[in-house]
């Protein structure tokens, strides 16, 4: 738990520093007829993030060394389960860039249902073909939202 807390705080710290940096670029000091300079607001937000994340880290290291729960951020089996969901989902998005959302989603659905759900092939095929097909009708045809077709479609020119 503590490690996760520190890592999260570190990421927030980095974001905070970036925001402060951009605030300084826009100008921070001065309060004219138009109110504050345009950099003041991001600067304050960034400072809030920096200070906040430092406090969180400080608490982990100094104050609550004992009182902090030693419970792990994630149980051993839990991590595996989360990755089982997260990695295929990220793969689907990555594939979408190349082969379009429909094919990627079909593969993703099939993979997940067969691998994790252990469903019969007939169910797997039915859902993983029908769902993308239906959504392609709903979104592309009726709602005229051109869903990502990836570079494949661009290359083929249709």
């Amino acid at each position: 738990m503590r490690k996760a807390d520190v890592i999260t705080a570190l990421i927030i710290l980095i974001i905070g520093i970036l925001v402060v940096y951009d605030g300084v670029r826009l100008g921070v000091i001065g309060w004219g007829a138009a109110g504050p300079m345009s950099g003041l607001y991001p600067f304050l937000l960034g400072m809030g993030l920096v200070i906040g994340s430092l406090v969180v880290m400080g608490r982990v290291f100094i104050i609550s060394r004992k009182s902090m729960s030693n419970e792990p951020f994630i149980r051993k089996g839990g991590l595996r389960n989360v990755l089982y969901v997260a990695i295929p989902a990220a793969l689907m998005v990555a594939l979408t860039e190349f082969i379009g959302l429909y094919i990627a989603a079909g593969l993703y659905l099939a993979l997940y249902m067969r691998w994790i759900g252990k469903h019969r092939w007939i169910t797997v095929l039915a859902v993983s073909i029908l769902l993308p097909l239906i959504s392609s009708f709903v979104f592309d045809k009726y709602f005229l939202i051109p869903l990502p077709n990836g570079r494949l479609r661009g290359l083929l020119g249709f």
Partner: protein
Amino acid sequence: MESLNNLMMGFGVFFTQYNIFVAVIGIFLGTIVGVLPGLGGANGVAILIPVTFIMPPTSAIILLACIYWGALFGGVITSILFNIPGEPWSVATCFDGYPMAKKGKAPQALTAAFSSHFIGAVFATVALTFLAPLIAEIALRFGPPETFSIMMLTFSAFVALGGKSPIKTLIAIFLGFTMAAVGIDIVSGKLRLTFGTTELMGGFHFIVAVIGLFGIGEILLTVEEGLKMKSLPVRMSLRAMLETWKELPRYWKTLLRGALIGCWMGFKPGGATPASFMSYGFAKQFSKNSEKFGTGIMEGVVAPEVAAHAAGVSAMVPMITLGIPGSPTAAVMLGGLMIWGLQPGPMLFKEHPEFVWGLIASIWASNAIGVIIVLAFVPLFAAILKAPFSVLMPSIVFICAIGAYAVNIRMIDIWYMIIFGFVGYTFKKLDYPIAPMVLALVLGDMAETAMRQALIMGQGSPLIFFRPPFALPIMILAIIIFFWPTISRWKQKTVKKECKI
């Protein structure tokens, strides 16, 4: 009484077989549009505008308005069933609606939500029918300082929703504001926080963040417990519905407060979302079982929903009377008005009374039709939960991806959704509260713009935020509400002391 006569005339216009048929179709389509995250009323209205060319203008606007009502109803469904808000104003519904569904009370939650919608609609329609010109006049008096004071009120109403750690609550709020600030600085006209990238110029869209934080985050939390989630026990019966209705009158205070907040906030552009948040925040602060909010109680579903629909109806006021689109949906409708040859704006009431009053009458009738249609759907939607998890879960991820993409037609948003999913998961585990972050993301931009415009108007002096007659009382109210938890604790203490004596 002139309003009543006009309304009767409007009903005369509305009640033809054709118009009722059109209304039913509209609500049906709207509900579907509202259910799908990322697809809003605006999409539904846009695709049907070509269809309306062959209709008389009144039927056309009835069709479009009904899509809007349907979307208002439909946005609730995914919030309650999957923790994925279909529309921005349904975010607050997730807080209690989803826990209710997890407890197996999905039908009750849906029934409560739809019924609250109807109550909100009726309330706002009464206001619209009799007070539209008055409301429009008040709306006009609201400039940047007043808008800012309302934002402050919303934030203070939400203060009680923080997590266990105040410092982490603050970080969450700051993160929300920072994300809202990405893009352009309205006062200097310069790009900020984009770091030279095109992707960041469009900023972070609220719906994308919410789909990730709530929807994907929740999925990750669920699977950690085990990949084979047991199907939820769903029992849909008429009895569940009747029980819910029996319980509803108990929340009359919440309902009334929510409806008032909704009517009042609705006439400002984008008002439905802050209204739902504010109503939820107030309900929690003033409720007897304040600490039970967020665990799945009906009051927490009723509060945001009644306000959201009241605001949705009340948002028609500026559109009809002032010709300002209160939402993207309204903007698309305005485009439609012009194609039908009507000029939106204050003259509409005088030049085309049959059109305006037909529309108002249709709000009465179509919301009544709408609540019946969606209630009939409840068993169907609740049944979705019975599907096996290994089918449901990837399907939800797929639909979420479509939703995130559809908001801006941008590939990067699907990536954002996945990242936000991890953020939501981590934050939930580390006690960073998500609700204040989302609120800051939704309102940060509006609040900042209003603040800086007001400062220019006041030539740099912050005193303008306290100008009478509207900004001053709202600001004072905001301050009182902000310290309300402290005040009530202090009151309790003094009461206890007195008892001892």
